[in-house]
């Protein structure tokens, strides 16, 4: 790790920085959620290819999402978000129907209760809803329960490990089980992992996790074995609408920029790219997204930061503290010398 931005900030070549000399271009995912039809072929293809165990047959009630979140045995997760707002110029045809208050808040509360007791391999799901101060369509204090639904949209999105430029899991792994591949992706080797779990707290997205019966940490490998044979990952191959695009990262970034511009022109002003920016807290994601709302809506952290961002300054502070301690100790000895 020799580059100036080995720990934080834009880094052009993570594979090279990790020690690969000659290596192929950095590969990644661009998940365009605007064309996701929520079919979950990605979830099934991933499980079939990688032999991942079943992860809980339980009705979560999170719209059509019964997976809940990424975890040790869920490496693709399709989220469904029902919202009382329009999508671009689409019309859900609700105006003039005799509709009443929305169900989404009630659903959220019940869902939260159900999630707490749902069986999950290796981790907890989100708990009770927290007011993050999102803008709402009510005037403060004006809610009387007689609001009516006038707009509706249903967002669908396939989440995956971000294969960050600066990967928190990779940085903290003490055994070397996690490593940076020649494709710039991040892979955990199950035959080396000792299940210490440091990586779980190191990931700013909450992706990697441990299997309870097994103990080891598992996550998406971007089908490393398929990449080595020149194939695309299973999820990208299965996706019927090309919501999951796979290819060289810079090509994907150009596609994404074009797609974003096209959506903005079509009136979908809330479309935004997430994880595309090399200046962000993880140096940009190897798997980045086009979202149709703020990341929090999808259960994604709005400002993910790799924990090693502060590594240098932590060491500097530790160094300063150590020197100060030495200096003070020395001063004590010098001062209190001959008595």
């Amino acid at each position, binding site marked *: 790790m020799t580059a100036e931005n080995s720990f934080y900030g834009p880094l052009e070549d993570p594979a090279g920085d990790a020690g690969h000399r000659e290596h192929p271009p950095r590969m990644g995912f661009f998940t365009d959620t605007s*064309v996701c*039809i*929520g*079919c*979950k*072929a990605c*979830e*099934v293809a991933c*499980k*079939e290819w990688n032999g991942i*165990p*079943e*992860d*809980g*047959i*339980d*009705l979560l*009630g999170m*719209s*059509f999402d*019964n*997976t809940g979140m990424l975890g040790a045995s869920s490496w693709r997760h399709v989220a469904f978000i*029902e919202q*009382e707002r329009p*999508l671009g*110029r*689409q*019309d*859900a*045809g*609700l*105006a*003039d*129907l*005799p*509709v*009443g*208050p*929305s*169900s*989404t808040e*009630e*659903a959220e509360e*019940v*869902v939260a209760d*159900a999630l707490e007791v749902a069986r999950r391999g290796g981790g907890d799901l989100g708990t009770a809803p927290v007011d993050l101060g999102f803008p709402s369509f009510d005037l403060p204090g004006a809610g009387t329960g007689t609001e009516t*639904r006038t707009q*509706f*949209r*249903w*967002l*669908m999105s396939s989440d995956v490990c971000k294969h960050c430029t600066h990967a928190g899991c990779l940085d903290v792994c003490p055994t070397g089980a996690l490593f940076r591949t020649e494709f710039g992706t991040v892979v955990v080797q199950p035959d080396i992992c000792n299940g210490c779990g440091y990586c779980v707290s190191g990931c700013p997205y909450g992706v990697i996790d441990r299997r309870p019966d097994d103990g080891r940490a598992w996550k998406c490998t971007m089908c490393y074995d398929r990449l080595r044979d020149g194939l695309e990952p299973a999820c990208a191959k299965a996706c*019927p*609408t*090309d919501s999951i695009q796979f290819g060289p990262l810079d090509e994907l970034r150009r596609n994404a920029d074009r797609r974003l511009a096209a959506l903005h022109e079509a009136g979908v002003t809330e479309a935004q790219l997430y994880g595309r920016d090399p200046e962000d807290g993880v140096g940009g994601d190897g798997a980045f997204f086009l979202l149709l709302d703020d990341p929090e809506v999808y259960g994604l952290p709005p400002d993910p930061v790799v924990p090693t961002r502060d590594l240098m300054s932590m060491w500097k502070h530790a160094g300063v503290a150590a020197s100060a301690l030495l200096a003070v100790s020395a001063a004590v000895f010098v001062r209190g010398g001959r008595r």
Partner: protein
Amino acid sequence: MGSNMAEAHPVGFQWVIEAKARGAKVIHIDPRFTRTSAHADQHVTLRAGTDIAFLGGVINYILMHDLDFREYVRAYTNAPFLLSERYRDTEDLDGLFSGYDPQTASYDASSWSYASTPMDEQPGHHLKEVSAPYQHGAGGPFIEGAAGGIESDPALEHPRCVFQVVKRHFSRYTPEMVERICGVPQELFLDVCRAWTENSGRERTTALVYSVGWTQHSVGAQFIRAGSIVQLLLGNIGRPGGGIFALRGHASIQGSTDVPTLFNLLPGYLPMPDTTHEDLATYLDGVRGRGQKGFWGAADAYMVSLLKEYWGDAATAENDYCFDYLPRINGDHGTYRTVMDMVDGGKVFGYFLLGQNPAVGSAHGRLQRLGMANLDWLVVRDLAMIESATFWKDAPEIETGEIVTEKCRTEVFFFPAASHVEKAGTFTQTQRMLQWRDQAVEPSGDQRSELWFFHQLGVRLKEKLAGSADERDRPVLDLAWDYETEGDEPSPSDVLRHINGIDLNTGRTVDGYLDLKADGTTACGCWIYSGVYAGETNQSRRRTSRFETGPYDAEWGWTWPLNRRVLYNRASADPQGRPWSERKKLVWWDAEAGEWTGHDTPDFEKNKPPDYKAPEGASGVQALDGDDAFIMMRDGKGWLFAPAGLADGPMPTHYEPHESPMRNLLYGQQGNPVRKVYGRPDNPSNPAPPEAHSEVFPFVFTAARLTEHHTAGAMSRQLPYLAELQPELFVEVSPELAVERGLHHLDWAHVITSRTAVDARVVVTDRMAPLRVDGRVVHQVWMPYHWGQTGLTKGDVVNDLIGVVADPNVFIQESKVLTCDVRPGRRPRGPALLEYVADYRRRAGITTETGTRIATADGHVERAHIESDRPEEPS
């Protein structure tokens, strides 16, 4: 409409997404907001079962504002033709057409004929029983004399011309009426009309997609007719980017009707002979008719070749090519009738279930299981141990005491089946495309393909019957059964060769149905598939990428007929053979070369010029003029008005579903006057207006599919990766309904009809919206129907809620719309369940006659259509 394409056909839906990326606008009209609606530019919530009112409104809008594609309509449809003076419309008879017989609840269609081609009176009862319309297949029934020219008014003004009759028929389907009946606000409805008409015409075309949401209704065939009329009026049929996409209900079911196991059809949509057909000539007259246009004129070649394929050398001209070996139908042998015969006993003793799970997948699950419990033997072939194989120990009727395991007399044989990757063969999908699949893996253990099973069955039956002198055994003994085999495994590609057709003189495959002969020198298993093995090459195995062929993928797989991709594409050019527009050119006449050419294989005789006029007295293919784009139709035209062929009317008419909370606002005739009801104690119906107590079941119920599961669930509930994606049966309700009935998200509730009650988890969602229907608020509920008692995820059978009432044209059950009640908490179990449902029936005043008083129009005495000669069924 009637389709949830993104969820049910996700791979096909990628092309809708692609079209959207190129600027196409998507409109989704459906009772609920689905994953398809999430990508639609416009969603319209519709009351289930009111699609004809909506489409009738669109037709009315088009005709009132003169927005039809006039040149197309005049040239290619029967709009100018004059109708018989005897014709009376639903406007005259309070919702009925002329010729109705309330005794048999059927029509004598003779008064619907063209003035030039009068038909003899013929009571409709027998035709209704054998589902005659389904038998006529692609050509419709015959219009005698249609080839001879039909009296018409090209100005489309004569009051008896089809154009004016259609206009009058739909004149009351105004936007106000659409709002009152369908619950669709007028402005929203008009937005759809504007979008549809503005995107049709010379320069633009609009495609219409439908699926099982249209077919599973007591007026299902008329839903589709209504869509066809709109598309014909707008000039969208046979044109690129237009047309009607009939998305089928599961993989290869298109093949299951092309080469059918249906009681009233032979391969290639030739009708099954009935008891009136004494010999081959009579039968062929029935198919070809006299003095008519179109390719059904060559039915003798298709039929004789089929008989030669079945009976080989035993079939000769002297014995009518063994025509007498074919069964003759004499009534309703449809699946529901047959199951009822099982229940009643004495008629049906054995049952083969091949990849079919009626205990979960067919309407009226209890009826299905009681039928299966009353057989001598039942053979089940499937990939997993399905509910239909284990009903004798785990059916819901075990719990209620209606089936007792120790006393159930049915002997069940289960044969494990090979999956589609363990055998080679073709799938025929919705776009009529045959695609060959190679075998990827050898089946393990005792698993065998369907092909092996039936081939072996034939071999062993022939062995058992060998030497028999009984005439009854000759049809089996004389079967040619000469497919190539490797060991005991028949060769699928040889079977496909036989389906394609073989020239018996040379032993080589024919190139297409034009090569088939009526003199016994060709054999062909399915004339519409003829050409799939042309040149001894398996055309269905081709996989030339779309980037290497033209826009119509002509070298990927093989579509019938003769690899044409867009049917009736002659209509993409004007009567002079020039494309309607440069932008929408598909096929056109090349005057220099003297042939039709273009981007697709022309669906027309290659060298017949556009200005060709057939000579006097010609019939069949020879009678088609150069502008008869609809080459299978007996008059060469697309039908706005169907003068024959449909059991329930020449034009679609809004009828309320069999079970409905609303009175029909347009006519006194409440429901389809010809629908097939089965009035028996074990098949009760919820009351519908004008019957009293319909408020006992106040909500509209509809059911459909989820992407994550497959039909009756045998292929998905067993798999952990699918079971965990949709782990439980649930019922979707709107927040408004949840408040009204005290339902809470993820709690238990049960849904009740007059058949039974089923448990489900509650999902409260904004995607369900109540409707204002004629001033009342109507709630709709939805359930997925995939669950049964076996597998990693179990649940009640939703089909147990649904009774049997069927469309009279094709005998498909009405399972897309009924009425129901929903209550919080779980249902009673065991005998208490029977008492609970009986109490509902008492409160609703349900008797065997409920729902069977079909004719409710003015002046009709209420006659109940019940099976009074059937034994009473203890309930």
